[in-house]
């Protein structure tokens, strides 16, 4: 499979990227790890006459933990997420999720920024970022702006990012309490049939806060405020979990595909969320 021909650029700074994006408009696209984009180009589902490789841009790399604020550069790979000691302590849900993405080879190349920017409902980072209430930082010709991950996704492959903007980083407060990323997939390297990201805090034996986001169960990731609310104030008993699952099922809208019919996906979503809540509560 041979993709359509393109001109290749490897700028050294983001300003160079923005200049190329402005010059070539719709015909230009950035590439991070290429592990979503290259397969699409090989299938000729994406044609990119001007391909801008971000690998040399130092400003997009690096993880910083400043007090309780965590910032992850767009070009940080899934492999780096998993192997960063500080991060595994400050936000263990990230490595738990990243370890369930694809396989070792893909994780060396696939980046946080590419995973968030891609807009494929099957990507795992978007739901995770919604669970963590992350802010996505974008840089365009007019400067930088921030968008909440919970507001970023519009439809499959459609996000709030303009064509001439680059995703710079994601930032969120270090989560507290218990966490879990649960994913049901058909085999290693597969996208989720259903996945759930859960963070729960506990006070006096009851749920103080709960944040719940689901992956690959709609054309966008789904942060279910109602599902979280159903847990707050409860002891996270079976009844509370049932209510959370019911609320979540009201927010998702899966479609039938090679991972199964709608009824099956809704069934799996319920089981995965129940497991995720149970584990997060145990750890809270």
């Amino acid at each position, binding site marked *: *499979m*041979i*993709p*359509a*021909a*393109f*001109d*290749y650029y*490897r700028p050294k700074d983001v300003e160079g990227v923005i200049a190329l994006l402005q010059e070539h408009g719709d015909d230009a696209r950035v*590439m991070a790890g*290429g*592990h979503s984009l*290259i*397969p699409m*180009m*090989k299938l000729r589902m994406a044609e990119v006459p001007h*391909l801008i*490789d971000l*690998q040399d841009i130092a400003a997009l790399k690096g993880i910083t933990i400043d007090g309780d604020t965590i910032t992850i550069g767009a070009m940080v790979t899934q*492999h780096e997420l998993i192997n960063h000691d500080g991060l595994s302590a400050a936000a263990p849900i990230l490595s738990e999720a990243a370890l369930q993405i*694809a*396989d*070792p*080879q*893909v994780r*060396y*190349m696939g980046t946080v920024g590419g995973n968030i920017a891609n807009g494929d409902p099957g990507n795992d980072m978007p739901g995770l970022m919604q669970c963590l209430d992350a802010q996505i930082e974008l840089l365009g010709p007019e400067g930088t702006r921030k968008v909440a991950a919970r507001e970023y996704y519009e439809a499959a492959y459609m996000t709030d990012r303009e064509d001439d903007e680059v995703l710079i980083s994601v930032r969120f407060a270090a989560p507290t309490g218990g966490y879990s990323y649960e994913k049901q997939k058909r085999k*290693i*390297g597969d996208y989720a049939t259903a996945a759930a990201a859960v963070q729960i805090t506990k006070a006096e034996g009851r749920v103080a806060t709960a944040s719940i986001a689901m992956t690959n169960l709609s054309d966008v990731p789904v942060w279910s405020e109602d599902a979280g609310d159903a847990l707050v104030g409860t002891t996270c008993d079976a009844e509370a979990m049932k209510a959370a699952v019911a609320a979540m099922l009201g927010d998702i809208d899966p479609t039938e595909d090679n991972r199964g019919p709608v009824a099956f996906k809704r069934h799996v979503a319920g089981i995965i969320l129940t497991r995720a809540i149970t584990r997060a509560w145990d750890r809270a």
Partner: protein
Amino acid sequence: MFDKMHIKMNVNGEDHEFLAEPRDLLIYALREKLNITGPHVGCDTSHCGACTVTVDGKSVKSCTMFVAQANGAEITTVEGIGQPDALHVLQESFREHHGLQCGFCTPGMITRATKLLEENANPTEEEVRFGMAGNICRCTGYQNIVKSILAAASELNSAKEAAQ
């Protein structure tokens, strides 16, 4: 437009320079321009791992990397890991423990396993299975591949101890 690029890369310790279209995939540049045919094309869709090579210290499926991305890189293929008359411990171990049958997946397996043992010299069976999850084998059923890698790990570790 779409001019060929001047590519420089070091493969298995040797410097190479050649012209290529940016869209050429690394696997085809290695196989067809440099005649390095150890890495195989199994699926061409980033699933099987037969094309695995090491690029600047990362295990990479070379069917999913443009040659332009690897411009300036240091690359290791199975040819750089051992020689027919001086096999690497992993290669010897695959032979000893029947870690291959048809051998098609083996270059990718060996290349990936080398990196795995570099990062985790003493893996458990589960860690080997998880670390090799990007490599598919249609013949062996994996049992003997895992055995081969575990045996190679303990051999490498005893050699290290003996050297100390």
